[in-house]
């Protein structure tokens, strides 16, 4: 491969996916544990998908193991679907009275948001989307 310098390697794509997953993990912990944003059950389900990604993607970097895509993609897809569901819920496309909230924490119907539009579910959906794309490209690269 002569242009190996210019095309990102599978390892690099996987590294970026790991970086995103880890950033999302720490970011979500920062918001819930430090800032004190209440965590609803849908958030928890997304965390169940996101937190292991940070770990298994890191393990697949040393030694580089592209097989991780199989496992990571499933987790990522689950997280993506739940994030999408919650984004639709927040947007009001799915009726609001379906919205679950956890007992024992204060319930709330508004969300923390960044720049006025980027709320947590939207950030999660974006992150799962980008990680999904990166995993897809790793797979494509490895199968050629």
């Amino acid at each position, binding site marked *: 491969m002569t242009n190996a310098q210019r095309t990102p390697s599978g390892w690099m794509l996987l*590294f970026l996916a790991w970086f995103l997953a880890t950033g999302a993990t720490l970011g979500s912990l920062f918001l819930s544990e*430090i800032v004190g944003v*209440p965590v609803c059950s849908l958030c928890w389900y997304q965390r169940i998908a996101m937190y292991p990604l940070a770990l298994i993607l*890191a393990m697949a970097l040393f030694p580089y193991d592209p097989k991780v895509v199989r496992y990571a993609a499933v987790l990522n897809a689950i997280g993506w679907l739940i994030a999408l569901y919650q984004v639709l819920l927040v947007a009001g496309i799915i009726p609001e009275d379906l919205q679950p909230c956890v007992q024992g924490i*204060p*319930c709330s119907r508004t969300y923390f948001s960044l720049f006025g539009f980027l709320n947590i579910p939207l950030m999660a959906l974006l992150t799962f989307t980008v990680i999904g794309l990166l995993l897809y490209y790793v797979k494509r690269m490895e199968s050629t």
Partner: protein
Amino acid sequence: MNRKLLFGAAAGMLLVVFVLAALLFQKYHSASPELASASGVWQRDGAPVKGPPDAKVTIVEFFDPACGTCREFYPLVAKLIEQYPGKVRVMMRYAPLHPGSDKVVAMLEAARLQGKYWEALERLFAGQNRWVVNHTSQPEKALALMEVLNLDAKRLAADMNSPSVVQVVQQDVRDGQTLNVRATPEFFVNGRPLPRFGFDQLSLLVQEAVAKAY
């Protein structure tokens, strides 16, 4: 080798950012107490108050009768008032965040016009699991709970929809939005919000306010 270096640097950077953000947040964060006390929106004249009217320390609690945490806090706050006899009072304000709660708080306000506010509130908290289903308030079931209070049912129904009651609820909702009340219960002690949610934080804030005022 440089891959390991890159990974290590990235992991280190993420951790450092996390720790720094946490430290900075805890150092500088206070939810603009000036806003609450200066604008006066944290209190509402005529809102239900428990404790001596001339107490110099006022806890304002934004609550939803459908909220489980509010139910848990209710006796704790009462104890807090007893802890400082004559010095602390609590003012209850509505934050009907659950679907259907707006009608239930209107019901409470109507019960108040018949002098049964606290009894009605305690009934609602005690029987919460009977009228709150899936985090949704069911006003009819809440109304059924209140029957033991021997309220004038006709008057209650009329008052619930009266302009003055509706206006009271609307003002609390509006002020709650101004004060950024996103969850219940939300407390303000002499206009100062809790730095972090928790009963210990509330006790501490009250203790400080009492020390300052007396």
